[in-house]
C-alpha cells in the first residue's frame, strides 16, 4: 500500500494561525476556562489576580493540547463525521504529524508553566487530565466501549479541581463535588446528542450506546444519570460551595432537567421522528444552560462570600 493511499487529503493551502488555534478546540476550551475559573475563585485561599489569570491560561492551554492530540489520533473518523469534517486535519490545512507535535509540546509546556505559576499538585492534575483524555479516552475507550462517554467525561470534569488545587495546593470534598457534577452531567448531555445525531456516530463506527444497546436503553441511561446528577448537584449546595442562590438555582434546574429526562424516557422512536427529536434537542440545549448556571451560581456564592455577604444560612 503506497503512502498516498493512506490519506486521501491533499495539502494545498498553508495553514494560518487560526487553523492551529482551531486544533486546540476553542469551544471546549471555553468550558475549561470557565469551570477552572470557578474552581479557583470558589477555593477558600485568595490568589493574586495575575497569578490566577496565568493559571487559567495554562489550564486552558493544557486542555487545548489534549484537543490537538485528540484530533491527531481521531483524524480518520473526523474525516467521516459531518460534525468534524471541517476540522483542520480533515480539511487538509494541517498534517497529522504537525498536530501531534503541537499537542505534545503544548502539553509539556502547560504542565511545567502551571507548576511554576501555582504548585505541582495542580500541575500533576493537569498532566493526569491530558493523559486521561488522550490515552484512556481517545486511544483506548472511545472506539472500544459504549461507556466511552461516561469514563471519558472525567477528563472534562478535572478543570475546576485543577483550579481549586492551584489555589489551595490540594483536593477537598468541594473540588471532588465540582468534578462529580461535570462527570455525571456529561453522559446525559452526549447521549441526548447521540439520539438526534445518530448517523454521524454510526458512520464512524464509534460504539455509542445508541448503537450497541439500542435507543430505548439509551433513554433509560439518560434518566438514571440525570437522577444521580440531581443528587450530586443538591449535595454540593450543602458544602462551602453552596448558599441560597446556589440552592434555588439547583432546585429549579434539576427539576427542569429531570422533567426533560422523564419525557425522553417516555418517548418512542416514532414520536421522536415525527417532531425531528424536538424533546431531545431541547434537553441538549438545557444541558448546556444547566452546567453554565450551576457553575455561575457557585461563582456568585464565592463572590458574595468574599464581600462578606455569604448567603448560606
Amino acid at each position, binding site marked *: 500500500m503506497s503512502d498516498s493511499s493512506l490519506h486521501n487529503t491533499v495539502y494545498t493551502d498553508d495553514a494560518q*494561525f*487560526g487553523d492551529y488555534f482551531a486544533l486546540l478546540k476553542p469551544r471546549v476550551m471555553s468550558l475549561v476556562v470557565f469551570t477552572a475559573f470557578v474552581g479557583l475563585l470558589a477555593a477558600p485561599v485568595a490568589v493574586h489576580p*495575575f*497569578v490566577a489569570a496565568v493559571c487559567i491560561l495554562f489550564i486552558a492551554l493544557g486542555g487545548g493540547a489534549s484537543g490537538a492530540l485528540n484530533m491527531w489520533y481521531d483524524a480518520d473518523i473526523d474525516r467521516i463525521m459531518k460534525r468534524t469534517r471541517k476540522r483542520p486535519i480533515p480539511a487538509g490545512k494541517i498534517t497529522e504529524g504537525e498536530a501531534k507535535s503541537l499537542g505534545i509540546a503544548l502539553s509539556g509546556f502547560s504542565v511545567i508553566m502551571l507548576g511554576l505559576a501555582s504548585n505541582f499538585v495542580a500541575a500533576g492534575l493537569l498532566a493526569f487530565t491530558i493523559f486521561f483524555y488522550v490515552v484512556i479516552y481517545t486511544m483506548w475507550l472511545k472506539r472500544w466501549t459504549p461507556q466511552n462517554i461516561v469514563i471519558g467525561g472525567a477528563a472534562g470534569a478535572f478543570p475546576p479541581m485543577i483550579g481549586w488545587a492551584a489555589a489551595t495546593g490540594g483536593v477537598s470534598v468541594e473540588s471532588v463535588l465540582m468534578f462529580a457534577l461535570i462527570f455525571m452531567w456529561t453522559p446525559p448531555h452526549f447521549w441526548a446528542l447521540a439520539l438526534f445525531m445518530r448517523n454521524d456516530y454510526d458512520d464512524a463506527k464509534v460504539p455509542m450506546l445508541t448503537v450497541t444497546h439500542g435507543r430505548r436503553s439509551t433513554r433509560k441511561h439518560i434518566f438514571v444519570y440525570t437522577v444521580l446528577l440531581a443528587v450530586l448537584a443538591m449535595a454540593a449546595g450543602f458544602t462551602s460551595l453552596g448558599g441560597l442562590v446556589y440552592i434555588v438555582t439547583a432546585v429549579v434546574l434539576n427539576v427542569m432537567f429531570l422533567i426533560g429526562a422523564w419525557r425522553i424516557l417516555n418517548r418512542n422512536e416514532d414520536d421522536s421522528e415525527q417532531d425531528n427529536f424536538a424533546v431531545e434537542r431541547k434537553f441538549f440545549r438545557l444541558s448546556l444552560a444547566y452546567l453554565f448556571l450551576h457553575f455561575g451560581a457557585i461563582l456568585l456564592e464565592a463572590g458574595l462570600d468574599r464581600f462578606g455577604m455569604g448567603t448560606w444560612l
Partner: protein
Amino acid sequence: MAMNFRPEHELHKRRFSRNMGLGLVLVCFVCLVFGLTIVKVTNGNVAGAIAGQTE
C-alpha cells in the same frame, strides 16, 4: 553599485498571518513571565518591594 533587494518571496506572504501570530504569542509569553516574576518576587506588593520592604 546599486543595491539589489530581492522581492518578497511568495512564501512569506502566504505565511504572514502564521508568523505574525506566533510572534505575538512569543511577545505575550515574555510579558507573562515578566509579570509572574514581579508578582512572585514582590508578593503582589510592587511599591513596597521598590521601597525595600521585606515580608
